[in-house]
């Protein structure tokens, strides 16, 4: 048991969570005061920041803030350090507190803002907003802490020694599954504590939009604080997603090396798509099937634990006679990613199911409709957009995943994410940028395909009339 590394991990996670909450709180203040298109744009930027793959952000930071980076002269901090790792993790996770806090304020009664019209500025934040956001702050602190604690790829690339790395190194040097799994208890405890706490304090996701409250919110926030929040929030958005995307698209090497990277990486690109698509579909399907079952919450640890640990477990389970076909083929990637993302799929499906018209489902049941008929005629037409959105989120998660598949990738199963991760160990170059761009295009592919399909369907329907 390496207590120093565990302490290091907790320090990194704690500092990253604190910084992420600070940034997220400021963005939430700015976001809640906006309405219409500006609010939508800010929400999209926040979601984009949350959706960016960690290695893409690391790649951009290495290019910009690394030892030979363009900004290194202006901001001469050592990226390959505790500070660099914390800053980078905070830039990845700030959207979680921002969206949760924003959601808490959006769901508050609008009359609350009008209760004391003289309450302005900092007093308004301290006496009205903070009590409303306290639970959301605690929830996001827990979430970011656990996610940062079990983050492996960013500290590994930045060569910051953390506890999951100890697991990885121990397993890699001794190949002792038992020892690695026994060592992992601190990584298990924190997610379990978080899950237990979240079970008692469920997250309130945004539902309705109360547009009437934004004007009052802005007025009570005050012009000075509003401008400060806008400036600081803008800075957060520039740091992420602005810098990573700007670096990616603005570097000439990205474009000059795109064609060679595509030609040399066609197999990996195809593999990435499959490895993302199949587990996403499987996870959504399974999640939907057991959406009403509470025991499926038992799969949460698979999501919160370090992916490396899941990989070690899968090697232990499948490297044996009779399961060799799983171990030596991409089936192990499908299995691993499905297990890892089953809990978010189940949770999403559960939320979607709650929003369905229960009376319609009951009517179908009473009318003698079979399960398949209820699915095709009642559930699917209602839940289609949400289920597709959930599937897309899982597709992205699987597409970016490096930690789960790093140890279990079979011959010929290399994905683009894994290739980027491996190349990043030797620092940034145009090839990595080109591969990141390729990965982003693959991420956008389902959206493009969906849009085209929807338009074709709409055109066909229009023609039919």
């Amino acid at each position, binding site marked *: 048991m390496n207590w120093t590394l565990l302490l290091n991990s907790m320090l990194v996670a704690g500092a990253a969570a604190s910084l992420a909450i600070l940034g997220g709180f400021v963005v939430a203040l700015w976001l809640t005061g906006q309405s219409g298109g500006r609010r939508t744009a800010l929400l999209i930027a926040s979601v984009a920041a949350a959706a960016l793959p960690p290695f893409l952000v690391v790649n951009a930071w290495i290019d910009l803030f690394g*030892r*030979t980076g363009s900004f290194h002269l202006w901001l001469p901090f050592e990226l390959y350090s505790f500070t660099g790792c914390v800053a980078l993790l905070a830039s990845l996770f700030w959207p979680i507190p921002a969206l949760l806090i924003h959601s808490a304020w959006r769901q508050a009664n609008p009359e609350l803002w009008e209760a004391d019209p003289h309450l302005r500025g900092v007093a308004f934040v301290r006496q009205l907003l903070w009590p409303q956001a306290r639970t959301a702050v605690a929830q996001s602190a827990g979430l970011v802490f656990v996610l940062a604690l079990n983050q492996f790829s960013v500290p590994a690339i930045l*060569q910051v020694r953390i506890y999951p790395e100890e697991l990885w190194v121990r397993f*890699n*040097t*001794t*190949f*002792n599954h038992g020892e690695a799994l026994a060592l992992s208890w601190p990584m298990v405890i924190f997610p379990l504590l978080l899950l237990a706490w979240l079970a008692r304090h469920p997250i309130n996701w945004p539902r309705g939009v109360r547009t009437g409250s934004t004007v009052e919110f802005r007025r009570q926030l005050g012009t000075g604080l509003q401008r400060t929040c806008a400036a600081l929030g803008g800075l957060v958005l520039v740091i992420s997603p602005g810098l990573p995307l700007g670096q990616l698209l603005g570097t000439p090497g990205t474009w*000059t*090396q795109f*064609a*060679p*990277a595509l*030609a*040399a*990486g*066609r*197999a*990996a690109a195809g593999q990435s798509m499959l490895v993302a698509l199949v587990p996403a579909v499987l996870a959504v399907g*399974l999640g939907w*099937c*057991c959406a009403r*079952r*509470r*025991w*499926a919450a038992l*799969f949460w640890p698979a999501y919160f634990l370090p992916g490396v640990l899941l990989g070690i477990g899968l*090697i232990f*389970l*499948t*490297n*044996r*006679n*009779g*399961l*060799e076909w799983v*171990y*030596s083929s991409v089936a192990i990637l499908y*299995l691993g990613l499905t*297990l890892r993302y*089953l809990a978010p799929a189940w949770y999403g499906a559960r939320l979607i199911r709650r929003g369905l018209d229960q009376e319609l489902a009951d009517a179908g049941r009473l009318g003698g409709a079979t399960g398949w008929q209820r699915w095709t005629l009642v559930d699917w037409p209602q839940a289609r957009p949400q289920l597709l959105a959930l599937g897309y989120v899982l597709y992205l998660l699987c597409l970016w995943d490096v930690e789960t598949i790093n140890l279990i*990738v*079979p*011959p*010929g*199963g*290399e994905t683009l994410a894994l*290739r980027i991760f491996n*190349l990043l160990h*030797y*620092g940034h*170059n*145009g*090839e990595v940028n080109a591969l990141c761009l390729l990965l982003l295009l693959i991420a956008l592919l389902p959206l493009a395909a969906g849009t085209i399909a929807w338009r074709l369907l709409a055109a066909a329907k229009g023609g039919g009339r």
Partner: protein
Amino acid sequence: MSWKDPGQRTKAQEMPKLHYLNAGCRFARWRLGIDWSFVLCCWPFALLLLTACSPPDTPDSRSLDSRLFSHAQVIGERGGGAGQFNKPRSVGLDGDDNIFVIDMTGRVQKFSPDGEFLLSWQMPETDKGKAKGMDTDPDGNVLLIEPHYMRVNHFAPDGRLLHQWGREGTNTGQLIFPRAVAVAPDGGIWVSEYAFAERIQKFSADGATCLLSIGGPGRGPGEFNRAEGIGVDADGNLHVADSCNHRIQVFSADGRFLRAYGRPGNQPGEMSYPFDIRIDEAGRQYVCEFGNSRIQVFDREDRLIEVIGGPGRAPGQFSNPWSIALDSQGNLIVADSQNHRVQKLWRRTQRAEVREPKVEDRKQNGSVTNHPL
């Protein structure tokens, strides 16, 4: 489900066994919340219970459909013990064709030409990163690069450190993330560097003097984009695996750019991240492709002779090979990185039949057992 239908329930009552089954299902569903969706989610574990718990077996050796090599012999398996590997990254040889392998744990292992484990030692410093890049000097000693410590080590075949040199820096004569090493016929030592420098320098045999520096970052002739492995042919020409430019570049002994070949892709003759290159006495060039998990052999005119391997775990197949070495008999040793093993491709001119029983003998003796990953 039958128990939901009152009509079928009556039928079930007529058949006691089905009735009990239905009752059991209903109880499981009502009391435990378990139903078919539970089974769906737990199938991987159920599958496990249905299978035996012993590690799988695979053959150690397989004949190859190759003009140059008769068969592939697997050396080692995944693990941390003697003769086992974790992502072997570089292979090298001493004057007696003994095989040296450095893996991701920073351990160097020595094997006999037949693949018998002989000895091992751990590199003393691995905190910053692990060693990679090997070659043999004219005295039969092993040269090993430590990229993150910016130095080159000379080891005797018994593992004694004989000499160590290298100063960190980007100036000529200094080293910044050296990656690979190749010894020229004149005894000079070529060292490739990536990241900050993207260059290849030639040092005197003791490393004290920098004789030459070529390259720089870019895609043009003579420029590099992560030069990985390097090899020297009998004429002293330097061959460079320019990995992220997906090509091989050839330079004269005095560092003059001669030619380049290869383009990105996965068709024969195309390349995806060439990580290493070796040249035999006939001028044949063996290119180890990380991205396509194969070895391509080109003649001295850069024409493709044959493609060996592809992604897979059978002997003769590879998974992200990192490095190769050619012994004095023309056998090719491959660091089959992601398969956590080394493979030796036996030259066809030798009597392969004589070698193959040896592999079986070893398997019977239990000296080296080879399992997949």
